[in-house]
């Protein structure tokens, strides 16, 4: 149980692909000017990442080490093409708003990165949990930034009008860069504080233990 909790927390927070590892930057910057397309992109990546992780984990004993990267790419590209077909058929609005970034999920470093770093060394269940955790880490990050960016850029959230005000720059990549940069800063700051707090606590605990022993 502890193992899955660690995988989940790593994917969502401590190794968050967007804020901590800064992977998959192109779709992030391109799509956070609208919360809906950011969340749509995130959820598409969750599905593709989980499936690719499971498939690669299942095939990890079959695929020879020498051709593993081409094999991963074929699997990921197939999943992306399949996802694209599904979106075009059933969710055409999202398909239009994702535009070119849908095909570019293939070269999203998160997916190939997780395949290479995690899925080919772990069993399918762990790989699935890792895929879900990282995917949702990515989705949450994109959605949060999407909400901020869309609100500042067009005064609405998820396409719903909130108030009559807009700062045009936040509807362009320039605004996306600022929001993304500052979000990373805030996130890193919080994590740093948290780690420091934990280290202090651990130190104190260790010291009391030592004292206890001495007393004993």
């Amino acid at each position: 149980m502890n193992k899955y909790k660690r995988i989940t927390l790593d994917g969502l927070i401590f190794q968050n692909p967007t804020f901590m590892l800064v992977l998959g930057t192109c779709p992030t910057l391109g799509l956070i000017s609208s919360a809906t397309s950011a969340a749509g992109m995130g959820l598409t990546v969750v599905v593709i990442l989980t499936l690719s992780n499971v498939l690669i984990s299942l095939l990890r004993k079959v695929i020879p080490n020498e051709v593993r990267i081409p094999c991963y790419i074929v699997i990921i590209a197939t999943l992306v093409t399949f996802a694209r077909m599904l979106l075009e058929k059933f969710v055409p609005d999202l398909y239009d708003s994702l535009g070119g970034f849908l095909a570019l999920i293939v070269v999203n470093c998160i997916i190939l990165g997780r395949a290479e770093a995690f899925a080919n060394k772990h069993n399918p269940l762990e790989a699935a949990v890792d895929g879900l955790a990282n995917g949702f880490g990515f989705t949450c990050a994109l959605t949060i930034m999407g909400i901020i960016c869309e609100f500042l850029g067009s005064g609405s959230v998820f396409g719903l009008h909130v108030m009559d005000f807009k700062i045009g720059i936040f509807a362009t990549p320039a605004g996306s860069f600022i929001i993304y940069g500052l979000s990373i800063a805030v996130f890193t700051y919080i994590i740093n504080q948290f780690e420091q707090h934990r280290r202090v606590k651990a130190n104190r605990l260790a010291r009391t233990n030592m004292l206890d022993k001495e007393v004993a």
Partner: protein
Amino acid sequence: MGTFIAIVLAAVLTNNFITVKTYGICPFLGVSKKTSSAVGMGVAVTIVMALATLVTYPVYTLVMVPLGFGFLEIIFFIFIIAALVQMLEKIIQKLSPSLYNTMGIYLPLITTNCAVLGVAELVIGDMSQFLNGASMNLGWAVLYALFAGLGFTLVMIIMSGMREKLNCYKTPKALAGFPTAMVTASFICMAFMVFTYIQI
């Protein structure tokens, strides 16, 4: 001639890959700490983009679409790009070891650079807004890819210059690295927004 100018302006300025399309951000943020490496990466990306388009565009229009396999384009394109990058690496290694030492290290990173796959996907899509009335062909496709690559290089160089200067200053711990780089990039984007007012 009108189309030529329209494509060049669109690729380099009005629809710059980094500042407008946000393609190829990983190398843009990762390899822009020094101007020399920014130039190396930019040139390598430009060459691969032009070559990739030279191969993928005819393969898609002349082979895949007539055979009805247009929907497999992502798999084919990524394979062609990966193979091309491998071949280029081997060729440069053979022909000029000195060039390989300066540029070769960037080549393996390019396969997963979305600017390359991005341009291959863009030129098979609707390009009418850049063509000024002309119809799409291989020449325009490669021209667009080449100048999109040069636009990428231009922004890389600007960015690396700014980051070299920024290195002289101390930044708060949380802001160091990516956050500073992104805010810098944001200012470049704002500067490039001026070009969207160009009328062709």
